[in-house]
């Protein structure tokens, strides 16, 4: 068992065309891709967002195994969704025991949808430094007014994203410490193993609260007051490639809409 591999939300620094995109374009583009995935009418049309997502992954120059590590972190969620579909959807030809062809189709449909959504979110988070991604979200939200609120939302996002890898590492550390004291999380029934995990979960919660408090003091020490800064070090600059990226996302959404409603 390893929590340190939980990479979702962790920025990976390499030079790539995707990394250099404007965070606003990436945020809007990711939103459009996720909406497209959610609107896909049948299995066949997954090919459109899949092609776009796989191309973006290739262009991001972060190895596919790194993205897979992120997906692996959601294995429980994916397996749960798959089982629910297999059990609840009946119809078509019976393949094995309670598994029907319709259930299998629905299971593949849902799992693919989740995997594509996770991958799209990963492309955004792994290629955009948290502060810049928060800036992107903040800029998009500020289009609707309320500059201070959008800044606060951006900051909350930044901190939340920052906390994911920190807590994953902390969980890993606590887990190893408990194993060193003789705890065994590998043997026994699932329920027993889950109960034993309490010795990791409770210290983790305490640690999370302590870290949150420390971070608050650290931010105050760095003069954070909640007011958006007047001058930003990194200016967001929209370029042609951002427009092209967004155009691809819009084309994808339009294609899916056409496939779904026409």
């Amino acid at each position: 068992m390893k929590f340190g591999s939980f990479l979702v939300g962790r920025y990976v620094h390499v030079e790539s065309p995707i990394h250099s995109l404007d965070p606003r374009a990436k945020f809007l583009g990711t939103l459009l891709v996720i909406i497209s995935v959610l609107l896909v009418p049948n299995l066949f049309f997954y090919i459109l967002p899949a092609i776009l997502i796989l191309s973006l992954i290739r262009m991001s120059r972060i190895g596919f195994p790194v993205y897979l590590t992120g997906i692996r972190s959601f294995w429980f969620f994916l397996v749960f969704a798959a089982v629910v579909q297999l059990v609840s959807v009946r119809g078509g030809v019976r393949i094995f025991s309670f598994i029907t062809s319709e259930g299998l189709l629905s299971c593949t449909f849902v799992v693919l949808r989740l995997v594509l959504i996770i991958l799209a979110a990963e492309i955004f988070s792994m290629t955009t430094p948290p502060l810049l991604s928060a800036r992107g979200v903040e800029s998009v939200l500020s289009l609707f007014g309320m500059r201070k609120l959008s800044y606060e939302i951006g900051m909350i996002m930044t901190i939340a994203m920052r906390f994911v890898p920190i807590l994953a590492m902390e969980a890993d550390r606590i887990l190893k410490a408990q194993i060193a004291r003789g705890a065994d999380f590998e043997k026994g029934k699932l329920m027993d193993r889950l109960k034993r995990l309490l010795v990791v979960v409770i210290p983790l919660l305490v640690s999370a609260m302590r870290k949150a408090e420390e971070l608050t003091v650290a931010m105050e020490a760095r003069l954070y007051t909640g007011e958006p800064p007047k001058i930003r070090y990194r200016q967001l600059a929209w370029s042609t490639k951002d427009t092209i990226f967004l155009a691809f996302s819009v084309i994808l959404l339009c294609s899916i809409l056409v496939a779904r409603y026409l």
Partner: protein
Amino acid sequence: MKITLESVSFTYNGRSVLKDVNLEIESGKVYLLVGKNGSGKTTLLKILAGLLVSRGKVCVNGEVADPISLRRLVGYVFQNPASQIIGATVEEDIIFSLEMLGIEREEMEKRLKDALRVVGLEGMEKEDPLNLSGGQKQRLAIASVLVRDPPFLALDEPVSMLDLPSQIEIFKLLLELKEKGKGIVIATHELEYLEGVDEVVHLNDGMIDFRGSIMDFVAVGFPDVEIPFSWRILEKCRTCSKRRMEDAHTLDKR
């Protein structure tokens, strides 16, 4: 410029951490805060930096200062440097407080480069601070405070994770900053490189029980603070020469 703590007390969970502390911190001087663990060093530094609100008064040049203005005046380096990492890259982390200060972009860039050079983190601007070693994190923490150029610095165990050459470098840097007129308060157990220290403040159970020069501190001797051998030798030499002078005076009189 002068920061004065007047009858400062602080209670945490019913326990008195600081009791009626009076202290004066002046620009251009280095103060060393020593004492055993739990004696109130970190609390005192945090009050000085406006991060804790205490009973009593904290004055700047004689006028009572609020926590926000103290935070602007005093740069605080945390005991655990990982606690103060905010940015996802070294650059973002250092720039954070400059953006809060509303400094011009060109000035930000200049200060960023200077801070990175001073702490020896040049070329690591895009690194994730979480991937840095303990020593590098400590350097980053110092850079993030130095970049603001505050008139006072409060450093809580600033070299505890550094190797020997890096410790010397950081103390050298702190002495340079002292020469530039900064008031520096260091809570530390590393007493090896203390040549430029102007005053030692010893805390015992939340109370200041000693204030004075490093030689007087060595002469008094506190069981909870280990004095390096070199300083003990220096102190002995001083005592011997003082005694010899006194003997010579006595002989002259005779």
